[in-house]
């Protein structure tokens, strides 16, 4: 392993899907104007919230399970180098090959070279956040290799030349009429009489995917967990497409963020209870696939594990922010987030949307490349309560806001106003004078009047309260 001198690198620019084209407020404005999206999101998040709350409520030891999940992740982060080396040793001993990728470019190159070496030009893919993060599909396409997403929602996104907008339900922003149009336009061999009945749409995808599973020799997956003790990889899913990809091809390439390792086999007992209940609101996910290296005569005979850093070491170096690496990608925080529910995932610009995205993306890229994301929250705390591994997302948001402010080299109107306000607040006589001045603003404060920038955002949808005739302080003094 190489030795780091100084701070670990963040995820490189120009590759992958961690940075948006627009700051959050602008991207959100576009999304908020889309009535269909607002309806879809409100319906989907409300439904899944209720479902998850029901199955979480069944477990008397849910809070202790959360504590256990949190403690296991904290232990893992504290022992990450040793656990990864142990994982490598066990995977190699079981017949697999392990590759270390410092960033998205290295990982994309490794996977492209591995696919090329097989002589095939198409891969089937299990839904994976890590490969979305690094832009693997784009890299494979550039190398003349066709990646086929096999998760239904991910396939809809891919055929629609679109981006995922939810960790678990990537096509949450699409309705069935739109999906029918995408299939008719893009799906090879689709029945032109396709209707927008959900069962018919699923049937069309099933036919197309079955054929693709049977004629494709290379698969690419992510991993939900990797057990250091045994070298076992685990993928959990609902549709069975993952099981097909993990068992049918000759070659399997798994790209996994380094934080996905868990110390021991028995730790899965905790996470396999937490994940489905927090995520899909199921007691148990329909498919749990586990494999350890290569088994002669059974499943892929060539197995490659690509361990991806891409900024994770930089996150790990931050004492407050490192909890973001505890995430098990359940998306419970998205489903309870009042901001996500209104804006959807695209507004976050990164493959990781919602509250976890607002703390993970800026850390992976460096906060200045995603400076608006830590502010894309009211700090309402619903995400912290919902997180199955108890990531204190509001605390990380506040921490990243400070990083952003401290990174500012020149004073801004905001920083000047904040410094002035703090100075005033630290001098009670000045403060009382400022309160009296505020009373003069009774004129601007009249109903329906606008405030000057940057406060005009308030008056677009809200009246300004009229300052009172007498402050509390003055009332108290006159008693």
């Amino acid at each position: 392993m190489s030795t780091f001198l100084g701070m670990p690198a963040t995820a490189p620019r120009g590759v992958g899907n961690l940075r948006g084209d627009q700051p959050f407020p602008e991207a959100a404005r576009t999304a908020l104007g889309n009535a269909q999206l607002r309806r879809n999101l409100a319906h989907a998040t409300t439904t899944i919230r209720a479902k998850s709350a029901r199955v979480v409520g069944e477990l008397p030891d849910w809070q202790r399970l959360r504590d256990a999940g949190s403690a296991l992740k904290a232990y893992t982060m504290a022992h990450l180098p040793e656990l990864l080396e142990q994982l490598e040793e066990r995977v190699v001993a079981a017949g697999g090959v392990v590759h270390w990728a410092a960033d998205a470019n290295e990982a994309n190159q490794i996977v492209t070279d591995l696919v090329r070496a097989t002589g095939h030009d198409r891969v089937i893919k299990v839904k994976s956040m890590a490969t979305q993060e690094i832009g693997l599909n784009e890299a494979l396409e550039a190398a003349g290799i066709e990646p086929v997403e096999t998760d239904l929602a991910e396939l809809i996104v891919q055929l629609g030349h679109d981006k995922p907008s939810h960790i678990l339900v990537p096509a949450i922003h699409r309705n069935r009429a739109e999906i029918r149009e995408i299939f008719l336009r893009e799906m090879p061999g689709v029945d032109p009489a396709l209707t927008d009945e959900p069962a018919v749409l699923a049937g069309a995808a099933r036919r197309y995917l079955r054929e693709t599973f049977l004629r494709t020799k290379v698969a690419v997956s992510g991993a939900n967990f990797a057990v250091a003790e045994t070298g076992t990889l685990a993928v959990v899913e609902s549709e069975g497409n993952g099981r097909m990809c993990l068992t049918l091809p000759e070659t399997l390439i798994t790209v996994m963020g380094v934080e996905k390792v868990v110390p021991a086999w028995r730790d899965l007992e905790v996470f396999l209870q937490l994940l489905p209940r927090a995520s899909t609101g199921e007691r148990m996910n329909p498919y749990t696939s586990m494999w350890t290296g290569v088994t002669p005569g059974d499943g892929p005979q060539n197995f490659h594990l690509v361990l991806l850093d891409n900024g994770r070491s930089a996150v790990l170096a931050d004492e407050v922010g490192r909890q973001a690496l505890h995430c098990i990608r359940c998306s419970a925080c998205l489903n309870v987030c009042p901001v996500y529910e209104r804006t959807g995932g695209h507004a976050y610009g990164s493959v990781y949307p919602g509250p976890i995205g607002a703390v993970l993306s800026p850390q992976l890229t460096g906060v200045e490349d995603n400076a608006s994301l830590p502010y894309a929250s009211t700090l309402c705390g619903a995400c912290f309560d919902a997180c199955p591994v108890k990531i204190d997302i509001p605390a990380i948001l506040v921490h990243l806001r400070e990083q952003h402010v401290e990174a500012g080299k020149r004073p801004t109107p905001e920083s000047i106003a904040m410094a002035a306000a703090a100075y005033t607040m630290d001098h009670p006589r000045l403060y009382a004078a400022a309160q009296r001045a505020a009373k003069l603003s009774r004129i601007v404060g009249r109903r329906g009047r606008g405030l000057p920038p940057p406060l005009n955002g308030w008056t677009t949808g809200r009246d300004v309260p009229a300052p009172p005739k007498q402050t509390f302080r003055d009332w108290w003094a006159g008693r």
Partner: protein
Amino acid sequence: MRIALFATCLADTMFPAAAKATVQLLERLGHEVAFPAQQTCCGQMHINTGYQKDALPLVRRHVRTFAPYDVVVAPSGSCVGSVRHQHAMVARRFGDEGLAGRADDVASRTYELSELLVDVLKVEDVGAYYPHRVTYHPTCHSLRVLRVGDKPLRLLRNVRGLDLVELPEAEQCCGFGGTFAIKNADTSTAMLADKMRHVLDTGADVCTAGDSSCLMHIGGGLSRLRTGVRTVHLAEILASTEVS
């Protein structure tokens, strides 16, 4: 009991009725209220916007001002949340362990109004009279930072003449979020629109809560729509009597 009032800068400057009501209520219940004049702001806006360095003197001032008192009350879940969960953090952030210890000490004696009434003073019926149809919005910081639970509702249920109606989706944020309301004005007002729809669905003429900031946001929206529905701080309802 002698209780120090932390009025909060927002109530002091913009919503004095909430702070006055807190005083009147506690005095009616037979307690002595002090208002330490050196108080200003807890620094929450600075901390939550990323200006912890600017907040440090405000934390120091707050701790110095309230250290001599056995019990401190504020008519705000959000400001008490900051005192309880952020002040020591800011002090430690700048290496001041002594201040952090004193901040924790003050925090342990600081209560949001419904906490003080129910947990410390052990009273759920404050003898109030308020003949209106009222719905209660549990503010995020009182709910998820302080965990006040149903304490405000227990107090409201004991108010004579008050018709309490349940707010649908009550636990969802109203969209205020401090500087979020300005920085992300569009998202903030979209959240507000849903909150207002739920408030209007209840048919209440008053929406109450334990935080002037969230009420300023909800009230500003209700006023803009000319709905006729008012926002009133919980303290004002609890302070109302048949005489007043």
